[in-house]
């Protein structure tokens, strides 16, 4: 990857940082959820710019593909499907709460900022890698082989869990004894059987 001049890198770093800070503040403060979601996508794109400056071209591409292309689109879908205009309920002592929250955040920020500025960070003297994809692949199959393999089990389980959560299940209106259905998960199954028989065949066979 052809490297940019130091001056250009410096300037682009500051522009990107300002954009990220502005956009992420917008994500938190925007009253409309849709704006917040789009600003989140913008933040992700700017972050991939930072990765490019760090010579991590593969990570930058992955950032755009996964975070902007998948995660953010998913968030937008979720907003679209829910589509609820919930009126904001007034919170008691909102100003004091916001004030305390702000002070805590500012304290944490200054703590981390002082740490970052004061620490004598060790710098790497190694030459930048030209082919990052090769290096990542090499690391995946040597030093990080076990986490790489375990994450496949993690993904498999996440898939099973997602299907489990999304699968349609019937909710019986009322139980035999007349109480609210499923107040406790321990409720005996015999109560469900009459409700099962009344259901259309297609739904019952799913279970």
């Amino acid at each position, binding site marked *: 990857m052809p490297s940019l001049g130091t001056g250009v890198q410096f300037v682009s770093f500051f522009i990107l940082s300002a954009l990220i800070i502005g956009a992420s503040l917008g994500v938190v403060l925007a009253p409309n959820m849709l704006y917040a979601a789009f600003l989140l996508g913008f933040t992700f794109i700017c972050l991939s710019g930072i990765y490019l400056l760090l010579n991590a071209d593969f990570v930058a591409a992955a950032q755009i593909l996964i975070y902007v292309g998948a995660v953010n689109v998913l968030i937008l879908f979720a907003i679209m499907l829910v589509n609820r205009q919930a009126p904001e309920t007034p919170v008691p002592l909102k100003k004091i709460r916001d004030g305390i929250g702000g002070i805590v955040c500012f304290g944490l920020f200054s703590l981390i900022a002082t740490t970052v500025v004061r620490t004598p960070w060790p710098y790497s003297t190694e030459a930048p890698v030209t082919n990052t994809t090769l290096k990542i692949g090499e690391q995946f199959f040597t030093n990080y082989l076990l986490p790489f393999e375990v994450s496949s*089990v993690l993904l498999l389980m996440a898939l099973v869990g997602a299907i489990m959560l999304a699968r349609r299940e019937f909710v019986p209106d009322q139980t035999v004894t007349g109480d609210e259905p499923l107040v*406790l998960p321990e409720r005996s199954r015999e109560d469900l059987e009459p409700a099962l028989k009344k259901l259309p065949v297609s739904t019952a066979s799913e279970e």
Partner: protein
Amino acid sequence: MEVLSTADLIESLNLGLLAPEYIVTGTLIILLLVDLIWGRPVANKLPWIGLLGLGLASLALIPIWSVSNTDSFLGAFTGDPLGLLFRGIILISAAVTILMSERYIYQSGTAPAEFFVILLTATLGGMLLSGSSEMVMIFVALETLSIASYLLSGYTKLDVRSNEAALKYLLLGAASSAIFLYGMSLLYGLSGGETKLTEIAPKIATMGFPSILALVLVIAGISFKLAAVPFHQWTPDVYQGAPTPVVGFLSVGSKAAGFALAIRFMTSAFPDFATQWHTIFAVLGILSMILGNVVAIAQTSMKRMLAYSSIAQAGYVMIGLAIGTPDGYASMIYYMLIYLFMNMGAFLGVVLFGLKTGTDEISAYAGLYQKDPFLTLCLSLCLFSLAGFPPLAGFFGKLYLFWAGIQAGAYTLVFVGLVTSVASIYYYVRVVKLMVVKEPSEVVQKYTPTDWTLPGMRSLQIGLVFTLVNTVALGLASPILNFTKDSIQNTPILTTAPLAKAEKNAP
């Protein structure tokens, strides 16, 4: 790095150390395939497949005990005796969870295969976490355990409280993961790009304040898994809302993995900051013991009471971590093993009672002795053991923990432990008294004798007897304590790391 030939690479991976994990992974894939091919008709066989897999995995732990080269996967995983015992504890807790969930799943009408698959994945995550010695691996293992736990807590998805539990657990868990990750990223930067815990230690030794910040952030992340006060807010709601067998696993398996991670992370990455992390864990332990025991007194729901009791129990175990002596670590493992049986036994009793009556209110247990003496006996012995009555196992567990504390000079910690244990007797014995002395409650009056031949009941019975026998017998078996001491002596990170003397007095 130099390029290795394939044969050398495979040799250097030292694959055999993870044999139990391969068996667990294989079992969960077999479970998925069996359910996919044969479906409902074989649903009652699934728990036994799971138990068989867990049993084989436990057997596979034995040959690893005497292996001399404990580095596996180029340092990502360490198969030392310390991790081995914790992996064993997690395996047993998963097995007991399967025993108590079979009937529960049947009655709640949820799908069994997915439950066991997610439970086994959580087990796998916990086992890997007990042995991980490299930060990327630690994070992947931690997330495997956490995401599986979120899914399990929301498993009865038609129940509103289960949904609430899962969402709360997910949001707070994600926040704590982020804090943990930030701490690890600081360590990565401070050490100049190292991810292995043992290689981080020498590079951050002279860094001073930034390393302490990283230490605090890492401890905050781990304490969430341990449910130590003040990172415990999720515990009562999740324990009350989640399906009861899952709560059993969370309170034992997940906690054991957290303690294994805490011991390994602290002793290998922060040996030069031992005074600091001893102090932090002493404070966390004292807070957990006090808050857990005090709030448990006021609870009216059995599951909620056991939630606060588990916070307090984690506080006792933290004494061992806060003193940081070999005896302290040994008594931690010993207590976790005992806690596994007595807590699981209590949850088995709660599951059985909940399945038959549909409630977990403490007042509903009144007069249970007249209708079901066996269940009353199991619950009473487990609660007595949790309270620390001799000659039950819980007494000996606490005895060794407090003894290790006194030997290390941590008098404040032991004093708080003793006082809060005495206070805890009140709320444990209150339940026992209610069951034995009081007249039967309305719920208990309708109680019918248990039919052990119903589907899934047999495994519940096996689980109750198994935990009961261990709760009674384990305290009298002193070889087990020597066994945990051996494991600490044979664990390199605990013997080479400078074991600083304990904090004399916690602030």
